[in-house]
């Protein structure tokens, strides 16, 4: 089973929290792969900020961002084919759907995922290639006439995803969708800060107390 990326806990919180044993990952091979697998599986936390990616990842991502900003029309995908991108975007849009507020689609989560698969998380490319092929097979089993997962009705998409929601591939896409929806917009997703608005996150990085309701109550700090 592929797990979510490591939890970032505070250093002193993490001290002594339970450390689940990393589970054996059968989908990965090679050093970089095992490194990433370790990260995903490890619950060591500890505020770990250490590297996963190639050191050039930042520069590549920055260059990509500049290029995208200059482009008048949407950038062609770097890793995905158009058909793959449509399927991944459809998955993302089911994971964080559009309701009265933007979902993964409007937040351009697909741009985030495509970009990290070309930069920080190149080693997950194979998981997508394989996972999307399986998704197509699942789609055909459910609806032999369907052209693609993206072409299914929303109800059928949900049914297909519900059947695979415990798989490593689904969890990988969930993790990337959620990460892209809430990561800084510079990485391609969270367009218009849609993710941060959903959870009422103020990204000013400069706050003055009181921060919330309870510390603003009279005498809350003097008692």
């Amino acid at each position, binding site marked *: 089973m592929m797990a979510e990326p490591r939890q970032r806990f505070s250093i002193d919180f993490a*001290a*002594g929290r339970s450390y689940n044993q990393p589970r054996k990952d059968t989908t990965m091979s090679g050093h970089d792969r095992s490194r990433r697998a370790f990260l995903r599986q490890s619950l060591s936390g500890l505020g770990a900020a250490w590297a996963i990616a190639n050191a050039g990842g930042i520069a590549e991502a920055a260059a990509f961002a500049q290029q995208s900003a200059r482009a008048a029309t949407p950038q062609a995908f770097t890793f995905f084919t158009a058909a793959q991108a449509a399927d991944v975007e459809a998955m993302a849009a089911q994971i964080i759907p559009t309701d009265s507020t933007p979902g993964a689609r409007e937040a351009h989560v697909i741009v985030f995922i495509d970009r*990290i698969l070309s930069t920080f998380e190149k080693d997950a490319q194979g998981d997508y290639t394989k996972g999307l092929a399986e998704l197509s097979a699942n789609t055909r089993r459910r609806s032999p006439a369907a052209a693609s997962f993206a072409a299914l009705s929303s109800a059928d998409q949900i049914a297909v995803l519900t059947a695979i*929601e415990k798989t490593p591939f689904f969890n990988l896409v969930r993790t990337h969708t959620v990460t892209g929806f809430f990561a800084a917009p510079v990485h391609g997703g969270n367009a218009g800060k849609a993710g941060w608005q959903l959870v009422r996150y103020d990204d000013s990085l400069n706050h003055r107390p009181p*921060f*919330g309701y309870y510390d603003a109550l009279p005498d*809350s700090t003097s008692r």
Partner: protein
Amino acid sequence: MAQFSPSTEVDFVVIGSGAAGGIMARQLSMGGFTVVVLEQGGWGKYGKEHEYTKDEYLNENGGLDYQLMSDPVRQPNTFRRTDAENATPGSHSYGCVVGGGTVTYGGSSWRHLPWEFNEATVTGGVRGTGLQDWPLTYAELEPYYVQAEWEMGISGMRVDSPFVAPMSKDYPVPPVALKASGALMKTGASKLGLTVVRGPLAVISKDYQGRSGCVNCGMCSGFGCHVKARSSSAVTMLPQAEKTGRCEIRARAYVHEISVDAAGACTGVVYFDAEKRTVRQRAKAVILSANGTESARLLLLSKSARFPNGLANSNDVVGRYLMLGNTVSANALFEHELNDYKGLVTGAAIVDYVPSDPARGFYGGGRMTARGFDTPINYALRGLSPGTARWGAAYKQALRDEANHKMTITSFLTQLPLATNRVDLDPDVKDAWGLPAMRITSQSHADDIRNMEFFRQKALDVLQAAGATKVWAGPVNDARGSAHNRGSCRMGTDPKSSVVNGHHRAHDVPNLFVVDGSNLVTGGRNHPTMTIQALAFRAAEHIAKAAKGGTLARL
């Protein structure tokens, strides 16, 4: 910064640049000695802290420049509960950058209480454990606590309480903001007759010694501080050490041997530089401040004809009595928004259960801290309450509903020192340099587990009393790795049962000093950094005196 040739015999090599190493480097270089600091990790954003990212994705994925913790793949470790088990891959990780764990830590800076230095006597001991009195008293260490608080810059509020260490001098900086989680903890505690105090923190709440006060950015623990408000070794001790012109810091210097001569005295160290070249640095004395697990490992790696079981290990105590540090958490949702993602991770604590109480039926105590730390990605991936959907419309609605409504109480707990809990060298697994990996063997005492269950329930009680709409807590699990590792080179007066004496000098090696969390005889309430820092100031003073008096090379 000074630069020394490795063939030059400097006065001191300091291995590690964290909570203890930074202080040793500063105090010894200011005392007139030449010092080379060898740090296993990289520079981070040392000297250009404004470049520390507040980008949650980049902080975890950004490449070597952002690597602030040890790399569990290049520096693997293994874990087992008991000697009878085969070790499997472990997840122990610790600060690994110039400044060590102080660059990213939450900053809790509690002193040990006076009776924590002779708790074996106070409690009558616990059969079958290594619970022992320290070779020094609180009164002896108190002036160095003051020194550490004022030199580092600790925010806090002095209180008169039997559950908090008495102080001869106030904190230099007032406490940081009490967050909503702290206010709610007060509400719950007051209904249960418990005492909440403001937590001392190594984050300055206002400008101090040329550094600017905290701006409550919220991307705190786990991130480097971009305004230098966190009082890390990297923005306090190390720049001051460099300024003396007698201290050189070398990053990515991975020491794998402390060398000794035929007479059994240290002659220097051997390390791999960033290009994996072998470098020998000569020194008159060695200060080992590599942390409560790596210091023991390095001693065990330093085998010689004279010390076949590892340096300073003639008694087979090196690595033993390891205390990884147990915590237990409980969470709650409240009706109104807390917005606890702003500000520091914590700022308030319930201290009534710090002492052990025989009436509870087991040995153990702890400190309950109020906290909230949900950065957006972390919250959305794993911060929702149990039973909520993981994807789809219901997931999105839960994200919306629960955002900023949560707080956590994490209790930091005692852990009994056991000879069987230890660091040693894995017989099979090697690190990326070909050296034996660290193997951790650890299983908490039954009393530690009962203590965890006690605090798990107390935290749920406080959250309920505070008016929570929903509370939850996972099962208790003792630690398998931690940044609060302690005890593996314990100090003591008896050379048979300790590694260093009361002034940190190895019983076996006259010019070797171990100064870090590994010295702690008992773990306190799992908030070790301030005690490590006070010990370092005291050790540096003693070592400087010995060096000036010409007694460095003999016991």
